[in-house]
């Protein structure tokens, strides 16, 4: 399976602007209203709040106590926990969707985490920074140092991110563990989807992050 085969576009409506992050709007659009969602690594709960405005029953897991505190203050149901160690305790089919937004690269075992997402949820939505992005390539190629961006400002020795991958790598992982990609988007530097139907290597080069709607099955 190539990225190209699974990359139709989703558009954002005009009213969905301004208040929420563009990548969050895209994720929210992928979730059917009325479903039950677990947001793994939910931060301060912005995405969960957006989902609640769409009538979605959202729950969260967050590593930092400050994040949990902010979420609880917003009335969100958020549990302090670690994606690497806590997901195994969740029962099968507990949620309609499990979301992993900008967290995959910080997990110790991305493959195991991905498998858990699709065990707990019937579908998973995963977004991550694309290490194949041209700026990343350029920093390594020309600058000769580990890339840093506005979204990923930490230096290599003090970053929480330990498993970077490219869009291409991620697609290969999905293939390897038999995960079906229902929808894929590449987002530009501002979190907006690249609108054109492009060959996958262009996405891998010009997408700053990838957002994937995944489901079980599709094993060869």
């Amino acid at each position, binding site marked *: 399976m190539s990225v190209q085969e699974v990359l139709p576009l989703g558009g954002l409506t005009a009213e969905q602007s301004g208040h929420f992050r563009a990548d969050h709007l895209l994720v929210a659009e992928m979730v059917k209203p009325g479903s039950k969602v677990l947001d793994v690594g939910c931060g301060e709960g912005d995405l969960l709040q957006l989902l609640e405005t769409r009538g979605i029953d959202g729950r969260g897991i967050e590593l930092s*106590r400050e994040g*949990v*505190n902010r*979420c*609880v203050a917003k*009335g969100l*149901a*958020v*549990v302090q926990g670690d994606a690497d160690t806590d997901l195994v*305790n969740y029962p099968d089919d507990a949620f309609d969707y499990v979301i992993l937004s900008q967290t995959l690269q910080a997990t110790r075992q991305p493959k195991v985490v991905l498998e858990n997402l699709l065990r707990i949820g019937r579908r998973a939505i995963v977004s991550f920074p694309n290490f194949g992005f041209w700026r990343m390539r350029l920093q390594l190629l020309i600058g000769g140092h580990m890339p840093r961006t506005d979204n990923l400002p930490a230096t290599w020795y003090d970053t929480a991110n330990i498993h970077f991958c490219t869009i291409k790598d991620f697609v290969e992982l999905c293939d390897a563990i038999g995960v079906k990609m229902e929808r894929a988007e590449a987002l530009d530097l501002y979190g907006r989807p690249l609108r054109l139907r492009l060959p996958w290597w262009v996405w891998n080069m010009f997408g700053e992050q990838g957002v994937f709607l995944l489901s079980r099955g599709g094993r060869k």
Partner: protein
Amino acid sequence: MVGVKSVPSPAISADDRSHEVDHPSSQVAQFGAEQPLRLDCGVDLSPFQIAYQTYGELNADRSNAVLICHALTGDQHVANVHPVTGKNGWWETLVGPGRPLDPSRYFIICANVIGGCMGSTGPASINPATGKVWGLDFPVITIPDMVRAQAMLIDRLGIDTLFAVVGGSMGGMQVLQWTAAYPKRVYSALAIACSTRHSAQNIAFHELGRQAVMADPDWHNGGYADHGIHPHRGLAVARMAAHITYLSDAALHRKFGRRMQDRELPTFSFDADFQVESYLRYQGSSFVERFDANSYLYLTRAMDYFDIAGDHGGVLAKAFAGIETRFCVVSFTSDWLFPTSESRALVHALNASSARVSFAEIETDRGHDAFLLDVPEFFDISRAFLQSAGKARGLTTKDG
């Protein structure tokens, strides 16, 4: 010869305490023969009474009632001066004007548990059948029994649904039992430093305490009331052992280290040379002033028997299936009596039951006791949880 100073005898007379047992200075709800309390052991307890305190006022639609459940040796005097010890309420850090549980906003209820010794019927009460103190003739009670009695009190107060049930340690066990037994009657639940079952280690510590009480020659097989004495030495030892489990090594070290008490050099005796020793002796002796030894046996036993999963075929999630209560679970990093792992197990079960649950582990070196102390992060999260639940419940207040 080695000198040993004895534990100072109680400063408060036994009369003060025994008066509070049957005639408490707080409010009392009496339940007569027509309303027996069905106990898990198969006995119908009747008549019986529940002593309780309230703070604040019930609003017009009766939607702002909060039940506070006290811990093992607590009582109903949560935010007022204690009638026996003269000390401030045990949870004034959480309850009071400007605190997370503000009486201007909520109608706060706290009852002495059944089996206690501050006005609710327990082993220190007079058995109406004999006219003598119950002692060991009192039936063994459980956490579900305590909660069943509280539910009867809440009925008596004309409250259908509690806005919140709040408690730590044994109080947290009651909170969980409330939600498992009466899910529709609990809108939100704040369970702190607790567990759905008492661990083997905790049962072991309780057994140590009970054996200390029973080894006191003044205990007289539980019949000490007939002899006009109280096994205060055994109970003090039980309290000392328990108190160690409420703290952490780091907290003890910070507070006392190996510092000596009123001296430079060791006395080469079994006097309380170390500050930590005199602290524990003080804790033990002040406890016996206000607590009944048999009550201690019964309440520790109730905690030991507690196992929500066991009551539901071993599957914890079944206890909370389809529950709509909003949960907030809080644990403390240095709590080794109810470690975070136990709270996590609860949270996972609640998640598996589709319950709406929040959970935070508070970083502190103050051990299990942290829930009674001034820990700002704990208050922040409690306040945030109660306020957001209040908003969802439509509780209108002056400050929103």
